[in-house]
C-alpha cells in the first residue's frame, strides 16, 4: 500500500529500462517522440491514449464494480479527452506498471502519463520528459488517533511512530522530529501491511506515510473518524503530468486543461451551474473560459467550447477532488494544500487573458 515502498520495489526494472531508454533516445531519431505534433496524432487516431495502472492505486487509479476505470488521475485523463474530442468515449486507458510509464510514453504507447508522477530533475532532463504544472501535491504526513488530543507534532512528544523500515519516509520522519527536538520512538516493519496492523493494534501512537495512502488506510479502520492527520506535512512532492519533450503545444493543452478546472473553481463554476454562467458571464475571464468570447480554443488548436465541455462533463477541480479523494469519497482526505491559494492551498491558477 505504501507508495514509497512500491516505488523502491519497482526501482530495479526502471533502472534497466531507463538506461536502455537513454541509450535509445540518444541513438534513434525516435518514432513519435521528436516530431512534435501529438495533438494531430491523437486526432488522426481518433483516440487519446492515457496511462492506467496494472491493478489499482487508490484513490488515483482504481476499477469500479462494473469494470470501468475511475479515480483522480483517471478523471483528468477523461478531462483531457473531453477537451480534445468533446467526449470521453474516445479515451483509451492503457494499463501500465510504474516501471513502464516513461518507456511507454517514449515509444508512443501512450500520449500522456497522468499517474501520481513526481516532478524530478532526473526525469525532466535525462529521460526526455516534459512535465506539466503540478496538479496535485502529495504530502508525507503522520496519522494519529484523535484521542491524543491534538494534531500538532508536539502531541507526539515521548510517543512512538510506526514506519516502513528502510524507506525514505522513515528517514524523513526521523529527521523531522529530531530537528524539532521532539523525542519519538520509531518502530519499523518490513511490510506496509504489518505497519498498518501494528498501528491499528495500538503498538504505536502514530503512523507515517504518503497522505493519500494514509487516507486509504484510515478508511479501513474500525472507526475512521477516530484518526486524524498531523497539521504539518513532513515533505511535499509535486505530481505532474508527463509528456514527451519537444511538443510545446501538447504541454500547453495539458497545462490549460488543469488550469481550466482551477479557474472554474475560483469563479464558482461547477458542472451543475456552468450553463447559467455561460448565459450570464460575470466577467471577461468567465466569458473567455466558457468560450463566450473566442480565443481559448484557437490558441491551443482546440474548439472554443473545450473548457466548457470539461467543466460540464467532468467538473471543476473541487468536484474532481471531492469525488475521488475528498469529502464525497470514502477516503475523506482534507483538501489541505491541494486547495486553491485563496482557500489556503498551494494551487495557483494561471491567468486567462
Amino acid at each position: 500500500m505504501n507508495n514509497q515502498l512500491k516505488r523502491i520495489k519497482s526501482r530495479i526494472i526502471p533502472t534497466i529500462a531507463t538506461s536502455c531508454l537513454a541509450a535509445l533516445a540518444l541513438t534513434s531519431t525516435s518514432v513519435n517522440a521528436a516530431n512534435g505534433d501529438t495533438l494531430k496524432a491523437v486526432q488522426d487516431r481518433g483516440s487519446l491514449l492515457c496511462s492506467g495502472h496494472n491493478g489499482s492505486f487508490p484513490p488515483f487509479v482504481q476499477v469500479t464494480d462494473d469494470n470501468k476505470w475511475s479515480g483522480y488521475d483517471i478523471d483528468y485523463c477523461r478531462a483531457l479527452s473531453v477537451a480534445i474530442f468533446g467526449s470521453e468515449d474516445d479515451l483509451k486507458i492503457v494499463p501500465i506498471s510504474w516501471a513502464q510509464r516513461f518507456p511507454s510514453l517514449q515509444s508512443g504507447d501512450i500520449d500522456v502519463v497522468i499517474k501520481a508522477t513526481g516532478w524530478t530533475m532526473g526525469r525532466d532532463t535525462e529521460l526526455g520528459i516534459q512535465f506539466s504544472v503540478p496538479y496535485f501535491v502529495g504530502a508525507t504526513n503522520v496519522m494519529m488517533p484523535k484521542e491524543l488530543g491534538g494534531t500538532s507534532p508536539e502531541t507526539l512528544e515521548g510517543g512512538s511512530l510506526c514506519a516502513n523500515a528502510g524507506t525514505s519516509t522513515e528517514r524523513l520522519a526521523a529527521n523531522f522530529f529530531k530537528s524539532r527536538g521532539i523525542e519519538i520512538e520509531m518502530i519499523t516493519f518490513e511490510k506496509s501491511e504489518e505497519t498498518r496492523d501494528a498501528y491499528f493494534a495500538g503498538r504505536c501512537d502514530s503512523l507515517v506515510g504518503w497522505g493519500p495512502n494514509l487516507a486509504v488506510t484510515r478508511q479501513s479502520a474500525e472507526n475512521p473518524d477516530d484518526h486524524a492527520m498531523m497539521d504539518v506535512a513532513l515533505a511535499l512532492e509535486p505530481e505532474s503530468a508527463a509528456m514527451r519533450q519537444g511538443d510545446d503545444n501538447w504541454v500547453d493543452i495539458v497545462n490549460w486543461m488543469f488550469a481550466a478546472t482551477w479557474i472554474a473553481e475560483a469563479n464558482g463554476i461547477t458542472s451543475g451551474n456552468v450553463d447559467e454562467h455561460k448565459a450570464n458571464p460575470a466577467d471577461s475571464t468567465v466569458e473567455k473560459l466558457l468560450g463566450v468570447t473566442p480565443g481559448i480554443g484557437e490558441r491551443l488548436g482546440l474548439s472554443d467550447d473545450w473548457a466548457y465541455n470539461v467543466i460540464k462533463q467532468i467538473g471543476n477541480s473541487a468536484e474532481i477532488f471531492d469525488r475521488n479523494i475528498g469529502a464525497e469519497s470514502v477516503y475523506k482526505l482534507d483538501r489541505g494544500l491541494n486547495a486553491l491559494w485563496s482557500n489556503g492551498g498551494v494551487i495557483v491558477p494561471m491567468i486567462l487573458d
Partner: protein
Amino acid sequence: MTDATYKLPPQTPFLRKIQNSLFSSPLNTLLSIATAVFFIFIIVKFVDWAFLSSIWHAEDEPLCKEAGGACWSVIDARHRIIFFGLFPYEEHWRSTVACAVMITTIVASCIPWFWSAAKLSTLWLLGFCTFYLLMHGGLFGLSVITPERWGGLALTIFIFAAVSIIGMPLSIVLALGRRSKLPVIARLFGLFIDFFRSLPLLTILFTAAVITPFVLPGWLQGDKLYRVIVGFAIFFACYQAENIRAGLQAIPSGQDEAGLTLGLKYMQRVTRIQLPQAFRNSLPSIVNQFVITFKETSIVTIVGFFEILASGSAAFGTGKWTVYYIEVYVFIATIYFIFVFSLSRYGAYLERKLRVGHG
C-alpha cells in the same frame, strides 16, 4: 506370469503397518502425535476462518470487521474484475464463452483421439479463431474490444495457450536443430537456446513490450500483447527444447542407425522413432515446464497486462475492500491450483499411458 510361479510375500496387517511406521519408539510416537496435533490445529483454524466464521455476501460487508473469519463479500462484489479484468461489463458473456472454448480446446487436445497433426491443428485453429472473434469482436455485430481492455482469467488462459501453441513446435525444431549433424546449424541453434536461457524472463518481456517499438518498423510491431506472447514463447521454447533434447539423448544411437539402414528418411526417423520416445523419456520435465509457464504468466503484469493477479489487485484496491487482500489472494490461488493440479494429474495419466510395454 502366473500365480503358480511364486508366492506373494507375507502381508503385514494395516494397523501393524501404522504401528511400525509411526509409533515404533517413544520418540517416534511423540513426533507423530505432535505433527498430527499441529496439522489438525492448522486445518481447524483454516476451516473456521474460511467457512465457519466467514461472511459470504457483498451486502454483509459491514459484519466483516467483527466476524473474525474470511470476508468473502469481496469476492461476491468484485469477482467480475478477477475473471474479466477491464472487459466491458455488458460483454462479459463473450469473455466467459471465449474462456470456455479455450479450456475445451486445451482439454480436447489432451485426449489421445485428437493426436494427429491434422486433427490437432484443426482443433487449435478453430479454438483460437473462436476465442479471438469473441474477445476482439468486429464481426457478426460484435463490438470491437481491443486487447488493452482484455483481462482477468481470460487473458491468463489466452497467454498460456498462445505461448504453448507457438512454443511447443518451436521447441521441437530447436531441440532437433541443436542435435543436427551439421556443426554450423548445431552451434547456431545452441547459441540461440543458450542466449535466451541466460536472460531473465522479465527482461525478455520488457524488451518485447517496451523496447522493440523503437527498433522495429511500424508494420512489424503488432499489438503489444502479441509481441509479449512471441517473446514469452521463445523463452518457453528454449527451455522446453532442452527438456526434449534430454529425452532424445536417452535414446540409444543404435535405434536411429537401425532406421537408417532400413532406408527410413530423416522425417520418418524423427517422427516415428525419436520424438515418441523422447516425449516419453522427458514427460515429467515437459509437464513441469507447462506448469511453470502457467504460473509465470503472472509476470506479464509488469508490462501492464491485466492478467488474473493484476485483476486481483484491482479487485481489492478500492475503498472498503483494501483490507481484504488475503481473501482475494486465496481465491486466486485456488484458481491457479485448479489449473496446475489438473495439469500435473494429466501428466501423471500420460506417464501411466505411455509406459505401456515399458515394464
